[in-house]
């Protein structure tokens, strides 16, 4: 059985969950077995509706002791639940929380793990999972040698495939260990789309000359419903908050659309964004290396192009 771990925060299922459900269901079909989901804590979402993504059963541990993320506690509970449910393959999102617990769960289960998976495994001979390595500059195909397998799927690499269906819900009774950490505060950046979950991203670099010029980037992002990002020099100069930095030493993202404004495209920056499906580069320098990695390019003054692009999108939306 393929067991898909569903991450929640503040009683809400994370967006990344729907993609891992679709992936887990497709893998189960390939292996000729069932796909089930595992949820820790109470959620406001309709769990039976997760059947839409191909799981037949949702297992829930609705205990106050697992309402909030605690890596050590979650590891023990998920490993115990996986054993009790008889899971042979576990799927996690390669998200912040997934990265924290999937390798630990693999250790507890004596399972081999591949994190950062980018496609369904090849299972005709062995169990070979392809993952991104060298910050997206290459892929490695890795054979998992153990009977139980754990996969953490790169976000935005498989897609979400809703169909018809409902899942049964089964409450699981698992011993909950004492908390290992005490969460004292949670601050969410209000009104913004988390970068790692965003399917559209507008990003800008030193070409914008100063933090006072970000208004047009924010306007474009708002028009598109996109998240904003920036290059490392911009975050190092404190023009923009650190959590917006994408690149080799910042966030690695894979949105459907990445619009880069005034970013030259140094190899370290490309490493953070080269898994994006479509890349648009706006730069006044026709020699900017980013154009080589782009799908669409506009050569010219960002201060004229970005507002014009914003107008064009508004016009297109009004016409649609």
């Amino acid at each position: 059985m393929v067991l898909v771990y569903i991450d929640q925060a503040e009683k809400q299922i994370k967006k990344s969950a729907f993609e891992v459900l679709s992936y887990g269901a497709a893998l189960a079909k390939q292996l000729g077995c069932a796909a089930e989901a595992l949820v820790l804590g109470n959620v406001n979402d309709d769990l039976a509706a997760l059947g839409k993504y191909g799981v037949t059963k949702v297992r829930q541990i609705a205990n106050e002791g697992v309402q909030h993320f605690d890596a050590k506690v979650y590891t023990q509970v998920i490993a115990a639940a996986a054993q009790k449910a008889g899971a042979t393959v576990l799927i996690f999102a390669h998200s912040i929380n997934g990265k924290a617990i999937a390798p630990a769960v693999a250790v507890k289960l004596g399972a081999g793990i591949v994190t950062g998976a980018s496609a369904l495994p090849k299972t005709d001979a062995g169990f070979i999972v392809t993952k991104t390595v060298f910050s997206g500059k290459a892929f490695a195909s890795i054979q998992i040698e153990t009977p139980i397998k754990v996969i953490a799927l790169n976000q935005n690499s498989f897609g979400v495939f809703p169909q018809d269906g409902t899942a049964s819900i089964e409450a699981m009774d698992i011993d909950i260990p004492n908390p290992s950490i005490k969460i004292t505060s949670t601050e969410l950046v209000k009104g913004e789309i988390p970068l790692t979950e965003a399917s559209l991203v507008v990003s800008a670099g030193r070409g914008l000359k100063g933090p006072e010029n970000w208004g047009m980037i924010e306007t474009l992002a708002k028009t598109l419903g996109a998240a904003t990002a920036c290059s490392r020099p911009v975050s190092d100069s404190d023009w923009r908050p650190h959590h917006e930095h994408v690149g080799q030493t910042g966030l690695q993202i894979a949105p459907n659309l990445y619009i880069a404004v005034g970013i030259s495209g140094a190899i370290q920056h490309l490493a953070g964004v080269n898994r994006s499906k479509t890349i648009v580069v706006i730069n006044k320098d026709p020699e900017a290396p980013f154009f080589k990695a782009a799908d669409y390019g506009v050569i010219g003054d960002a201060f004229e192009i970005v507002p014009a692009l914003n107008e064009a999108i508004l016009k297109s939306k009004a016409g649609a």
Partner: protein
Amino acid sequence: MKVLVCISKTPDTTAKIAFTEGNTKFDENGVQWIINPYDEWYSLVRAIELKEQDPATIIHLVTVGEADSEPIIRKALALGGDEAIRVNLNSNDSFVIASQIATIAKEGAYDLIFTGKETIDYNSSCIGSMLSAILDMPFVSSANHFELAGNTATIKREIEGGEETCELNLPAVISCQKGMAEQRIPNMRGIMAARTKPLKIVEPTTVKATTTIKSFELPAAKTGVKLVEANNMDELVRLLKEEAKVI
């Protein structure tokens, strides 16, 4: 307090990525090696800052690698740290590496174990998480702030769309990222001192690998950029809608 800082050797961020032996091995030809940036800039420097606050702090560095890892571990010692341990093993299986570090961690009875949030070569983000499971310690990942008062650590970590603050009692494993500390450059005094700091070489324990790398592949090259005139943003919007189908 005893801190163990995990150090990994990675290719420089600008290294050309290529493969040899029928795409089964990373081509090390002409590659410059560096300390994995997350290990160096964030976990090692934060450990050094903790020692500057409390000089009784002992910092040990550990790396799992063969003799060619020594320049990296010496460079790390030049930044700071009291001594280093090199487990004499070349492996790319996260569980094998984490098991070697766990053996060192158990013997040294460390209060705090720092790792980088990931290495920039395999990007697996496995070592910290696995160490916490093997050692049965609390784990906080992607930490960008770490303060210590007595035995209690206050840690900020990144979450999707924000930040979370938590407290825990040591011992613990922490994976570090940007924000933890400011990057430093080794000075001459540090480089000289590093030459005489102890570097212990230990032989690995036998651990069965759970994974095998079968092959590598480079992504298909982009077919070429399609240029759109700066005064024709309607065309760009049309392409994004109708051709790329992303908006």
